[in-house]
Every structure is written in structure tokens, then in C-alpha cells.
């Protein structure tokens, strides 16, 4: 091997080795800073008797950070987290809808998308009935209905809380 090809080989080796070392350092950093896997998934929460959720009302359950809504006698457990950028979506008494104050996304009582920048309706937890008890499994969060869903849409009861139609 002559001097020039030896130098070229070494130079190539350094480039490859340097790249691999940077990769190893990056991987180390990622592994070190990755959040620890928390054993606490979501527990099953018994939120109450079926009779305590009257038709077309909602109940906030702070233990699960969610609303239990009864829309037209269907029970849903809606996550309070806006699917747009994670704000807490409050219920607007005057319009009877969920209205996000951050960027103006509006959902009907069942969490279906009406307007605003959100990509879909509000996300839901699975609700099951154990006898007369309503049980919510908070370990599984299902993506909300697509934008087009209008199953439970009703006209607004009154003026919007965030100044939108």
C-alpha cells in the first residue's frame, strides 16, 4: 500500500469511526433521558351508578381527569384533554358544548367535533357496566370520532362561552 492510499484509508476510517462514536453518544443521551417506564398504567375507576348520570348532562370526574357524559342516553367518558394541543376543555353551560379556550375548538356533548383547529373529536375511555355501576378503564384511551361525525349534534342552547358561533 503506498502512502497516499494508506492515508485515504485512515481518513475514511476516521470518518466512519467518528460517525459511529457520535451515534453511540447520541443513543446514550437518548437512553439516559428517556422517561422511566412507570408501572402505573391506568386503573379502573368506578364513577357511580347509572342513575346518577341523567340524560344530556355531564359530570366531571377529577380522579380520571375526564367527563362522564350522557348524550341521548349513551354514556361516554371523555378525556378533558383537547386532541388539538392538550388544553383542558371546559364545559360551557350556556351553549351546552365543550369549548376549548386555547384555540377555539368546539365539541358537542358527546365530544364530536363541530369547529376549530382540532383534528378530531374528544378522545374517549372505555366505559363498561358492572351491574348498576359505571366503570371506566383509564388505561385505554381511544382516539375521538373523526371530524365528520355528527351523530349527537344538536343546536347550541345559547351563546358560546368563547365568543364563537
Amino acid at each position, binding site marked *: 500500500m503506498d502512502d497516499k492510499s494508506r492515508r485515504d484509508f485512515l481518513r475514511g476510517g476516521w470518518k466512519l469511526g467518528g460517525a459511529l462514536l457520535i451515534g453511540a453518544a447520541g443513543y*446514550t*443521551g*437518548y*437512553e*439516559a*433521558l*428517556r422517561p*422511566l417506564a412507570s408501572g402505573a398504567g391506568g386503573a379502573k375507576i368506578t364513577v357511580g351508578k347509572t342513575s346518577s348520570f341523567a340524560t344530556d348532562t355531564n359530570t366531571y370526574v377529577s380522579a380520571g381527569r375526564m367527563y362522564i357524559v350522557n348524550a341521548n342516553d349513551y354514556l361516554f367518558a371523555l378525556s378533558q384533554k383537547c386532541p388539538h394541543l392538550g388544553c383542558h376543555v371546559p364545559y360551557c353551560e350556556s351553549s351546552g358544548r365543550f369549548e376549548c379556550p386555547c384555540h377555539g375548538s368546539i365539541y358537542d356533548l358527546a365530544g364530536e367535533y363541530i369547529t376549530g383547529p382540532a383534528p378530531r373529536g374528544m378522545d374517549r375511555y372505555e366505559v363498561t357496566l358492572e351491574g348498576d355501576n359505571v366503570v371506566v378503564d383509564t388505561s385505554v384511551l381511544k382516539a375521538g370520532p373523526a371530524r365528520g361525525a355528527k351523530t349527537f349534534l344538536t343546536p347550541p342552547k345559547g351563546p358560546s362561552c368563547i365568543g364563537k358561533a
Partner: protein
Amino acid sequence: MVEIDPNKLEPGRTSVDHGLTARIKRSDPWRSAFRHAQIDTPRGRALQSFSNVFLHVYPVKIPKRVLNLRYSLRLGFIAAVLFGILLVTGIYLMFVYTPSVGSAYGDMQNLKTGVGFGQLIRNVHRWSAHLMVLVVALHLVRVFYAGAYKKPREFNWVIGVMLLLITLGFSFTGYLLPWDQLAYWAVTVGTNLVHYVPLVGGRLQDLLIGGPQVGQNTLLRFYALHVAVLPMLLALMLTVHIWRVRKDGFAVERTSVGTFSEAATERPAGAAPAAESMALAAPELYGGRVRLLGVVDRESITEAARPVDDTVFTWPHLLVRHVVVALGTAAVVLGLAVLFSAPLRGLANPNLTPEPAKAPWYFAGLQELLSRFDPLVAGILLPGGAVLVLLLLPYIDRNPDTRASHRKVAIALFSLLLAIAVILTVIGTFFRGPGWQFIAPWTHSYIEF
């Protein structure tokens, strides 16, 4: 695409490369970031230094003797590399550590059981810290024997001794942070030693531990010292240290009597800075026609000023050596870290002193002294006096000669003190067991790194 003028090619290149990487490297964005290609010609090697801010730590050319590994053993540079490793791993550790009595120890446990590479990062931090103390001390010894503290380097020696003290301060403050038994009692003993400082001892101790005993305040204070105050001090002093090494002409010429060659390392007389900036501003404009005066053969400047050219280009000669030494240092540290884990004893318990309560190895000599003499003598006066003598050494030893045969007294005295320190350290580290009883190291080892 910009038309390439073949006349602007470097000497030795005859054709224009049309490959993708070659095209990217000729593009405006690339050339705005990397002003010129990496070229193995004298001009190319000089340009590497001129156009790269990070290489301005080095001069463009350095005396040939600096390349000699046997001269310095690169100890100072290795110490700086270890500091760099400590900085990076320390920042990683800061992400996963809370300096609170309630959670510090739990965070240490988490490093072992949960955080990816957590134990490895801690091991690397620990081993680099041990090695840094060792290497800085060896650097001091090496500089003494080379006589490199003599005029004009006196003050740089003083800064170097301060850097050693800061390094020890790092070790001492870092020792408490895991909040295990080892940490708690080493720091309890160390801070009680401060109490014996004449006049201000009590107040100094109060300032250091911030309470009646080592507790939450101490942990927070040591943490702040360890991650903010000391790094800042060290970076500051290191900057001055390195800058002075460069200004004082790097390695001492051993055969000479108190001379140093500043001219050899800095810009040769007569080199016009304007030419450099012109070439920097638009190298392609001047192409190969305007040569950098710093690179031109000496005859063309002034033959009389520089009879012998004893310099070589920093890029690539010194730089590659430095990078290789840094890689080697990192490899050694990583090897130690993979093979030997940093210890973690039980949670700090103020009601139970463990047996044996041993200081880290670099304070073991001090602990050995303390077992024999009064704390004021052994803990304050002797080490304090030694540090003072070290600091003032260049002003005490006024002999300008750097040749060993002409400074026998200085070398003999220093060697004697060094031998005492080494012997005390070895006894304290290897030959002491529970109750500070003498034990043979091969029966049972009580050292923990």
C-alpha cells in the same frame, strides 16, 4: 450550477470532480460554512487554522519539539480532556439528580436500576475524577522536573497549583452528592477539619455546612459549588493557563539556560496581517496566487531573522496527536467504567459511622498524618505549608538553569517531599483497615474507588 474555473484548483489536482459530494462541497451553503476544502498542501494546512475559530487555541505553527511525546507525556492535555469528559457526564447526571436529602440517594439507586446507561455515566464520571486528580498531580511533578516553572513561566506555575487545588475541591464537593454513608462521613470529617483553621475556622465551617451538622443545606451548598462555582473558576483559570503556555513558547528548551523562543511560535517578523485577512475574506478570489506570508519559505521574508525553521504546522500534526490522545484517554476511562462500578453504600445515617471510614485515596495521606499528629498540625499547618511552598516555589527557587545537573538541591528536596507524600498515600490507602489499624493489603482490601 456555478461554473468551476479549473485555474482555481489546488496544485496537484487536474480534473474537476462531478460526483454528488464534490458538488455539495462546491455549493454556496457548504462553502459558507466550511470556507475551503481540506487540502494537504502547506497553504491548505495553514488555512485550516486561519478559518476555524476552534483551532485558534493553537498557533498555526508550533515548535517541532512540542510533537515529542516523551517530553510532556501530554499530561496537561490529558487533564483537560478528563475535565471535558467530566463536564459532559456531569451535565448528564444533572438531568437525573436532585440535590435533596430526601431524593439524592434514591436518584443514585435509579441510575442503577432505571436510567439507561445511568450507571455507566456515573462510572465514567467517577473514574475521570480519580484520573484527573492523578494526572494533574503527575503534570505538576513533570513540570517541576523539567524546570518549566522558571522565568518567564513563574506565574503559570502558580495558576497550575491553583488548578490542582480546584480539582481537589471538585472531588471533595462531588463526594457528598450521592448521599450514602461513604459520602456523609468523609464530608463530616473533612468539614470538621476546617474547624481547626486558626481564627476563622469555626465560621468557615459554618459557611461550608450551613447548619449544626452535615444536612440538607450542606448538600445544596456542595452541589452549587460542584456544578457552578468550581467549573466557572476552573474554566477561567484553565483559559489563562493555556493561553500562557502558548505565549511562553510551549515546551522549555532543555539545553538552554533560561531562554525561550517566543518568536518561533508566533507570527514571524515581517509577516503582514493584511495578507492573511485578504486570503481569509476571499480565498477563491486570490486563488493560489496570493500566498500567505506565514507559509512562504523563510528566505522570501528575511533570511537573517530566522536562521532555522524549527516549526511544523499545527494542523494536522499536533491536532491529530491531540485527538488521538483524547480518544485514548476516553478509551481508558470507558474501559475502567465498564469493568469497575462506582460504589454506593447504604443511605447516609447520621447516627452510625461506618468502619472503616476512609477518605478517598488522594486524601488518604492526609488521613494518615491526622492519625499521628494534632489536627492543627497534621490537618492545617502541614498541608497548608506544603501548598504555600508549592505556590511560592518559582519565587523561592531563583536559579534560572533548567538543566537537572545544575539544580541538584531543588530536585533532591522536591523528590524527598514527593516520596513522603507518596508513601503516606500508599500507607493510608492500602495498609489501613477498621479503626485505622495496620493491615496487610493482601489480606483484605478496604479501598473503594
